[in-house]
């Protein structure tokens, strides 16, 4: 429950801050920097099937560059909260196409149903990577973004199976599972 509140607060603060700063130039003499935010919703498609994702990125635009910090929800196999740095570059003049790269950490937020069952399980943070291309459709002062990329989610799970044996001190069975989940990431976003 605590995580829900933290996440809701994070999104709310980010959104309110971003809207408040939309397009606003950074204070200073004729600054070329401006605040921008991107809200993405999308799908992650991989070997395990399709699952949803949400992202909110706040950052600064400078000429053809954008750099920001993002937070999201990733439902692929295990629910997690990615926290990442996002960097984008408009690559071809006249064509609203950008390349983007995200790198950060996944914080596990695993649902009870995703747990192993009769094991005692804990999850550890893992690496988050995403990279791809984004096409921009201007809408007045804002923009609709359609993105496609390749994403990797790494997580580790520690399971204690509590082996039964007849005379005991029964050995404790600890199993460490390392996941490397590879997906296509498709997103529709709103840049404001």
């Amino acid at each position: 429950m605590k995580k829900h509140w933290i996440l809701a607060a994070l999104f709310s603060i980010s959104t309110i801050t971003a809207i408040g700063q939309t397009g606003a130039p950074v204070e200073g003499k004729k600054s070329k920097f401006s605040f921008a935010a991107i809200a993405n919703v999308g799908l992650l498609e991989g070997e395990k099937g399709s699952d949803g994702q949400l992202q909110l990125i706040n950052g600064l635009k400078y000429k053809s560059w954008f750099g920001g910090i993002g937070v999201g929800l990733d439902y692929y196999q295990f629910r997690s909260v990615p926290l990442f740095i996002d960097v984008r570059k408009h690559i071809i003049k006249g064509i609203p196409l950008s390349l983007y790269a995200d790198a950060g950490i996944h914080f596990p937020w695993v649902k009870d149903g995703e747990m192993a069952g009769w094991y005692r399980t804990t999850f550890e943070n893992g690496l988050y990577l995403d990279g791809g291309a984004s096409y921009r459709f201007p809408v007045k002062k804002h923009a609709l973004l359609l993105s496609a990329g390749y994403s990797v989610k790494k997580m580790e799970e520690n399971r204690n199976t509590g082996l039964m044996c007849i005379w005991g001190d029964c050995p404790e069975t600890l199993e460490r599972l390392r996941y490397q989940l590879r997906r296509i990431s498709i997103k529709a976003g709103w840049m404001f």
Partner: protein
Amino acid sequence: MKKASFIPLCIAAFFVFLFLSGCLKDKCTSTYKIFSPVYKTLTQVRSGMKSGMVQPLQNTGKIYQYGQYIFLNEINKGIHVIDNSDPGAPKSISFITIPGNVDLAVKGNYLYADSYSDLVVFDIRTPTNIIAKKFVEKAFPDRGGFYWSNATNPDSIMVVVGYNERDTTVACETYRRWTSCANCSFADASGISFSAAAPQTGQGGSMARFTIVGNYLYGVSTSQLKAFDINNAADPLLSSTKNIGWSIETIFPFKDKLFIGSASGMFIYDIATPSNPSLLSQFSHVRSCDPVIADDVNAYVTLRSGTQCQGFTNQLEVLNITNLTQPSLIKTYPMTNPHGLSKDGNTLFICDGKDGLKVYNAADVKNLQLLKTITGLDTYDVIANKGIALVVAKDGLYQFDYTDLTNIKQLSKINLSK
């Protein structure tokens, strides 16, 4: 081809490549330990059941005091022998290796201990040279252990004495069969309790499941009361077995009666005929773990929640047992998580779990007066006798001097090793 349409085509081709090339294949590896059991024959295991070098206290259980010695169980491993001739400086002098041991009692020169389903008799005339004299096989069959196969010859019975470990990493999808022990099944950690009140015997704690009264050793398993004739101390003979209920936990002797604690209540058995205990009465309570002690007039029962007891009640119940066929509740006192208890005269000692050791003036059982709470220790059981309280706690064995109840002081502590 126009440059503008070329780039989207490249991106589309890239994703097609991903699909086809297997770049979307998830990877999962599992790293775990494989435990390969190390076996010895039961004959070899029995030959190792003797006193040896002192071992650190790590996971202690039941306690038994006999003269200047304390016998302290190391759960499932054996018994520490402690010279307590100076309670201010108790000293471990040996360790008796007994696989599967949880309970013990002493009479004369003999120590009786369980080893899974066996009852083992040890000669303790020389505390640093204790040897096993007799094995009563399958004395406590519900403990399981050695006799999981149909073998009866100790030279043929294989006992797991340890495990060799090695790490391995496999793909998560690899099928594995968990066969890391000889016969994996649930281990019943209950045992038989000794407690001694007769001459030439010592004194066990209230959590005990073994007891010695006169020439008989009585023990409770989860559902049975057994009586062993120990007239010939080195050669116990099973006299009777009675089914007495379920979730039986503790046994406490007082004069010619046995007070038996169970998850559902307290039973009083008459041992006027020592070989054949007979039920006198029963006092029911809510489902809870409950050690019990008694004096001439009252029985004291602690009820606690948690673990296998599955109850939710934590309290002390004081019963009137002047009419043994009709024990009745006098009063209930709320507690935190009470475990073992002991009484010396009008002074009642309660091990109240993490709350520590509570010392009461029990002269008026309707109005117990808390004299002192000794905090800072997570208490399990206590033996209070002649001014010295032996307290088994999670972090060690304590001794307190209570000769002056207004100034109870700690005499010593033997720490558990981490």
